[in-house]
């Protein structure tokens, strides 16, 4: 077990290094001079030179890479060009909002998907099954940048039940969370259905029924619990998709999180901030996948690395 944990942890290091190197390389992919591009065409050569020095772009590439990496280890992501504040602080200030939205979306997804998946499995082949799976198919095919505005039109504009964007009470969270969680709900519902169906075929469920357990009890107490293992894994693995989904969802609903910060930073050509946001999102993604793998390894002792 310990060997698996250590190996999995060690394997993450080159991936993180690779991700960091990629993000470092980003600013050097800017066509022409990044400093000129940030300041615009109207900037004087002196201003451009000053910014180049501030960004460290006048140093040799190896030195730039070294200071980028050592800064990263210290949690120093440089300064935002637009705000003049440390990038790490800008991200930290919006962290809570992004996690709040991601967690709410996962909650919505689980709350919809698990009952739907169980119903579809128990009533396999009936109208309930077909309706649930059609709903799931729609959920998967609908891009969130369409679902979001549609929900806003229906619930904010026509019905007036919910606010259209921004933050405030819990009601502000509903539309973004549903928009972000819908695709995950669809995937989870299909997964739950397949998983429950598989368990229902197992002998222990049959044995429970033979002992006189009702159908509901056989499903809820026996089949469902075991079918949860793959579902939990999918939830963990999908957290990354939810996290990147926040970029679009936050933009749609003017939700002040890291995703929206990234898009704003891109529009202002604030490259240090862009790099910081991308690093933050991808590191979180890698760590979540690591965590899922480790948990899975603990849950299911059959899983080992060789």
């Amino acid at each position: 077990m310990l060997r698996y944990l250590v190996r999995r942890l060690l394997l993450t290091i080159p991936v993180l290094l690779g991700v960091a190197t990629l993000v470092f390389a980003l600013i050097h992919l800017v066509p022409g001079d990044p400093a000129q591009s940030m300041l615009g065409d109207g900037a004087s050569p002196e201003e451009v030179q000053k910014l180049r020095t501030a960004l460290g772009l006048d140093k040799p590439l190896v030195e730039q890479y070294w200071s980028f990496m050592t800064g990263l280890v210290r949690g120093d992501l440089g300064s935002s060009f637009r705000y003049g504040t440390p990038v790490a602080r800008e991200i930290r200030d919006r962290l809570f909002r992004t996690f709040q939205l991601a967690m709410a979306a996962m909650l919505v997804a689980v709350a919809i998907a698990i009952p739907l998946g169980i119903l579809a499995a128990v009533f396999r082949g009936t109208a309930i099954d077909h309706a649930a799976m059609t709903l799931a198919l729609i959920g998967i095919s609908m891009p969130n940048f369409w679902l979001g505005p549609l929900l806003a039109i229906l619930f904010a504009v026509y019905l007036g039940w919910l606010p259209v964007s921004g933050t405030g009470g819990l009601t502000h969270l509903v539309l973004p969370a549903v928009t972000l969680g819908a695709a995950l709900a669809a995937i989870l519902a299909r997964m739950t259905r397949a998983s429950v169906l598989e368990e229902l075929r197992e002998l222990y469920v049959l044995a429970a029924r033979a002992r006189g357990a009702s159908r509901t009890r056989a499903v809820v107490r026996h089949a469902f619990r075991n079918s949860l293992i793959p579902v939990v894994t999918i939830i963990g693995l999908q957290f990354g998709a939810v996290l990147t989904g926040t970029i679009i969802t936050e933009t749609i609903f003017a939700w002040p999180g890291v995703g929206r910060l990234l898009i704003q930073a891109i529009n202002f050509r604030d490259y240090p901030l862009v790099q910081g946001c991308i690093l933050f999102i991808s590191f979180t993604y890698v760590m979540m996948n690591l965590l899922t793998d480790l948990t899975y390894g603990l849950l299911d002792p059959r899983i080992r690395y060789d």
Partner: protein
Amino acid sequence: MIRVGFVIVSIAVLAALLGPVLTPYDPAAQDLASRLEAPSLAHPFGLDELGRDILARILSGAQISLLVGLAVVSVSSVLGMLVGSVAGYFGGRVDDVISRIIDVLMAFPGILLAIALVAVLGPSLTNVVIALSVIGWVGYARLVRGQALRAREFDFVQAARALGAGSRRIVIRHILPTALPAVVVQATLGMAGAIIAEASLSFLGLGVQPPTPSWGTMLDAGRSHLFDAPHLTIFPGLAIAVLVLGFNFLGDGLRDRVDPKLVK
């Protein structure tokens, strides 16, 4: 399912090709006096914020979506097949290096890398294709690498080698054809992915730039008119969802045909 997918995709291709014939309106012609006009007999999908016919723009946007999809899928599948077969066939250190690169790129959420690349390269149609291909080839490479690893041991490959066939010939004539069916399935599903990704980038203002009609930019414009003109949002989104569904149906259906083991 495969039929439904085929019909949807065919209609989309026809609509993209015949767009100008199907509607009397120019997708770029503005009529500011009747901007945001709701759907009517003359304009079944209504007019947008500059008074342009939305149906004409959706038909024209189909060209962009399909073109981007085709370009991304072609570039990434060819690149992925090349890299994957080299890694799988030669193995050893070459495979190690390629596999580590694949690991890093897979560790990155795809759309995030695309956003990052377009952010630094600048928003344009070409850069969208570049960015999506940079993330796209990895999937094909991994797929083909696995196939190549297996194919290497097949008798007919061993026989070809024994007969003195060179590595290049073995890879192109013997290894790649065994991977091709799986690549075709992946490419079909990849069309759906590329279309969504292009629309997402354009929606965020990082893709196709106005006035070129892209479904993503049309949706972006619709966001400012949720209250007064919801048709700006409804129709372009519907077009994306239906076309994506079509490619997904087609891809799933093809997969069942290619791999009969999967059919229950």
